């Protein structure tokens, strides 16, 4: 019982990182209107940006998170220029293929620049653990887990406020719903799509370093598995709904960690993809209600 409870906690913590990464992913797909396969590498770049803060500045978590956001934000500009800007009216598979190309390029460049080996990320958050008695079994909450969960909640809330309260938020949402109508509102659609892509990438970058902190390591090839998980989580929201994507991420985290209670840790990734396949079979359009879209 204690084990399951602890796995549930692990699931919620990991799920909240997945949620953050799914939020970023659905912002990108929503605002740009095209799918990306370079997201895992964007996360990796964010993780390394923060890693070098840890190395050269020290264990300054806020600064590292800022660096992760900024590093991925900048890669977001590059990806936008190379993969999207000129292809808005082209067939969709063209920009999709471009993102696959960029993903390979970044992964290999990263192995050259950062080195191929896995790098340790240690002692960023102190190793404190709180033991709490729940119905007779012990729940071990690590300080790290609390930090991660709180951070994700704060970031998600900040993004929600940004989207709902600011002029740029309205612009981003308008562009994600109808690009032609957005032009007719005088919105600079391309610049708004660039901004959306970069914000989404920035969130991916933060998720990247949170995974690094959670698993105590970063590596040039860490992105691939997460890229697919972000995609899987976002499918729940039809790829574009932020709240449902976040929920999808949380679900995948919990399913993974409870799943390995009954199997083995090596089966972890199976659950995410089983989840993806099930959602695609039963609800390919996602779970967003169509109430808001009577046309």
């Amino acid at each position, binding site marked *: 019982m204690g084990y399951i409870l602890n796995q549930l906690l692990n699931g919620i913590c990991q799920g909240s990182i997945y949620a953050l990464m799914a939020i970023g992913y659905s912002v990108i797909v929503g605002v740009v209107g095209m799918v990306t396969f370079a997201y895992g590498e964007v996360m990796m770049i964010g993780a390394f940006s923060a890693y070098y803060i840890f190395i050269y500045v020290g264990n300054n978590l806020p600064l590292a998170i800022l660096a992760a956001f900024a590093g991925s934000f900048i890669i977001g500009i590059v990806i936008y220029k190379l993969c999207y800007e000129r292809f808005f009216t082209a067939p969709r598979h063209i920009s999709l293929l471009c993102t696959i190309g960029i993903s390979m390029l970044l992964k290999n460049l990263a192995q050259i620049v950062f080195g191929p080996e896995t790098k340790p990320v240690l002692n960023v958050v102190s190793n404190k653990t709180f033991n709490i008695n729940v119905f007779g079994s012990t729940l071990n909450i690590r300080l790290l887990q609390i930090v991660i969960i709180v951070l994700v909640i704060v970031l998600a809330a900040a993004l929600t406020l940004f989207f709902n309260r600011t*002029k740029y938020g*309205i*612009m981003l*949402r*308008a562009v994600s*719903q*109808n690009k*032609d*109508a*957005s*032009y*007719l*509102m*005088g*919105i*600079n*659609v391309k610049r708004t799509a660039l901004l959306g892509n970069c914000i989404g990438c920035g969130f991916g970058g933060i998720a990247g370093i949170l995974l690094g902190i959670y698993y105590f390591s970063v590596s040039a090839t860490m992105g691939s598995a997460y890229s697919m998980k972000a995609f899987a989580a976002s499918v729940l929201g039809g790829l574009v709904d932020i709240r449902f994507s976040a929920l999808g991420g949380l679900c995948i985290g919990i399913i993974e960690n409870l799943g390995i209670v009954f199997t083995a840790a090596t089966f972890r990734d199976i659950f995410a993809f089983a989840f993806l396949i099930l959602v695609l079979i039963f609800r390919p359009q996602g779970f967003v209600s169509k*109430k*808001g*879209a*009577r*046309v």
Partner: protein
Amino acid sequence: MADTILKVENLSVNYGYIVALQNVNLEIKKGEIVTLIGSNGAGKTTTLMAISGLVEKRHGSKVTFKGQDITKMAANKIVHMGMCHVPEGRKIFPSLSVYENLRAGALGNKNMTKARFAELIEEQYALFPRLKERSKQAGGSLSGGEQQMLAIARGLMMDPEIVMLDEPSLGLAPIVIEDIFELIVKIRDMGRTILLIEQNASVALSIADRGYVMEIGKITMEGTGKELLTNPEVKKAYLGG
């Protein structure tokens, strides 16, 4: 006679090999209601999209707005000059609330102040009381007529000098159509110029100062609203005898 606000000369548009518009000429004066009528597929929507920069124009076309050549200007820049285009099929933002849709409309005006914004919102709510009641509701949950009103109100939020409406009566009940045309006259009386595209020729011509008739990508007739209403050819083709 008042000044010309919008002038379209030799406007031609192709979609690939399909010729959609050929040498279209239009002139709209400040404060007028001008209507462009024609049957389905005549090229009316294409004309509006070409004016507002959403489709590419062929070489030799020229569009002048307030004396400035806007032929090659980007669509969002044209909006900033004070041109509002309420597109065919409304194209409101379905998951933005009614209020947020109106806020999005105001983005089209770079000189918007807080005070003017508040004034414009009140103006829309006075013109369209239904929108005030539903201000918090998602745009997509409105009825067809309400969505059309929202699309028009959203356009007016940018405080435009000219309002171009693409078939505002499409798919609406006759009673709602009457309301919308009354509103169009009101909007003109508030000092804006109107270019109205319609298949519903009788109503459009009855409120228009002048009208143009478009057939397969060309302007075939023009005249005052009255002249066209009583013109035997127009009667036969567009007014059911």
